[in-house]
């Protein structure tokens, strides 16, 4: 294997007869921030969900930190791994959703300590202390007792990021983390993500925020219709797109 954090090789994914991913091959190095762009329906979310095995791929391979996602290879044969092992793989991969998906019946603090206590077996007071640190880090140190419904969208998304970080993941996946936010709340979430990138977190970010992609992204990948059309460093992709489909897309979002 290689020392890539994520290595995807010819990943195909079908829903029924609808082929959504048609052979995705890409590498994400440790500490790299990869921004995934592309029109709606091009398969960005699906690819992200394949990385933590929320979706099963139909062919190809994905490795995270050298481990095959969802399977174990013995000789030429792939064996599905158990639910417990899948869950264990997911602990290492944080995910942030467009609609935040905070647990509505729990306070911010309870949201954050739930998995560390129940899944990782941390002592509740240790987890609570860590939750406080994380909430400070996302600028919400005084909202530990707030329920999601009492927080603005931007605040909820920052709690969701803190919740994912509480499992100390080695990789963070963001699926359009700012798309459900009012424009004036986008900045506060991007600030948190920027700080995270500066700390060296490996991140795959599906986003339409080209400003963020340019500034924070190490690589930009443009996807369309289930394939990677173009990828490279942000400057070359944004300022000198080679492919007509990339040009057409960028002319709409820039």
């Amino acid at each position, binding site marked *: 294997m290689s020392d890539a954090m994520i290595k995807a090789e010819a990943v195909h994914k079908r829903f029924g007869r609808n082929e959504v991913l048609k052979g995705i091959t890409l590498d994400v190095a440790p500490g790299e921030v990869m921004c995934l762009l592309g029109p709606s329906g091009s398969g960005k979310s699906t690819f992200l969900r394949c990385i933590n095995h*929320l979706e099963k791929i139909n062919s190809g391979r994905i490795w995270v930190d050298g481990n095959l996602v969802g399977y174990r290879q013995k000789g030429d044969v792939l064996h599905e791994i158990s639910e417990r092992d899948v869950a264990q793989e997911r602990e290492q991969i944080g995910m942030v959703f467009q609609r935040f998906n905070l647990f509505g019946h729990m306070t911010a603090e309870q949201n954050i300590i739930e998995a560390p206590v129940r899944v990782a077996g941390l002592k509740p007071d240790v987890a609570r202390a860590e939750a406080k640190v994380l909430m400070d880090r996302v*600028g919400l140190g005084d909202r530990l007792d707030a329920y999601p419904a*009492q927080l603005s969208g931007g605040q909820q998304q920052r709690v969701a990021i803190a919740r994912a970080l509480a499992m100390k993941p080695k990789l963070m996946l963001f699926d359009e983390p700012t798309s459900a936010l009012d424009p004036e709340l986008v900045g506060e979430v991007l600030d948190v993500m920027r700080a995270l990138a500066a700390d060296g977190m490996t991140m795959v970010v599906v986003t339409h925020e080209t400003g963020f992609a340019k500034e924070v992204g190490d690589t930009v990948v443009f996807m369309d219709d289930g394939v990677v059309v173009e990828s490279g460093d942000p400057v070359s992709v944004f300022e000198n797109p080679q492919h007509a489909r990339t040009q057409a897309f960028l002319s709409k979002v820039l």
Partner: protein
Amino acid sequence: MAEADQSSEPAPAPAAPVEINAVPVRRPGRLVAGFLIIVVAAALIKSAATNPRFGWGTVGEYLFAPTVMEGLVKTIELTFLSMIIGIGIGVLLAVMRLSPNPIVVAASGFYIWLFRGTPVLVQLLFWAFIAALYPVISLGVPFGPALVNLDANTWITPFVAVLLGLGLNEGAYMSEIVRAGLLSVDEGQEEAAKALGMRRMMTMRRVILPQAMRVIIPPTGNETIGMLKTTSLVSVLAYTELLYAVQLIYATNYKQIPLLIVASIWYLVLTTILSIGQYFIERHYGRGTAREVPPTLLMRIWQSFSTWRHTRVEIPEPTRHGL
């Protein structure tokens, strides 16, 4: 990210608002309707109080009679135990319905079909006569050796038969209620739990079920009140709950009406207590949602009387924003 909290923005101090103190619209229809209802109610009360066949003296005499009290305790016991069985089975069946395994789904569907498709009275009678069907109940490996043999007549006591009859039947109804609750929880909740490394059962127990409760509780309250009344059916099995207790008494003194009133009073007392309890449970499971649980009927009546007295127009507070 320092200046993110916009709630700290100073709002311009508004000029002191003037309370609206308007003369309410006259509503003659309401007055007439209210008057008619009061007249009819007064007539009914007078007839009930003066008709000697109601036997209010006898009602008072038997209201706290030991036999009635014992029956009352049995009724409460049956209601709660069979609801616990029903809820347990209901949750199990609902979770089975969502299983990826088709055989598990089919088993749950069959159970619901069977128990909802036959009258509960028939089921109760089956359990009462179970010993005729299975004189010996063997627990052990299916088609293999038995580990324990239980004599049905000693183990399926009338109490157990009644409990099984009511509880297993209730499970079929509860499963539909629980299922509706589970489906009401946004899929994103399960996704988020999975992504954090939580497994299916933990996700169900910690994330989905608690949020489904908000949808599950109100109909479960109704089921409990329904169950309280359904327990009276077991009087046909000569099981001494509230109704059978008063029947035993009027079998000897022939004062059927007063004793049925005694039973009705106790059923009403219990349903009232259950409704109040339901309000507080709903409020507990509503936490984390911006909306308040609607007030109970009693509270609404009280509130409308107090707004009759103060005709100030209430201006609703702005609702909390956020998704």
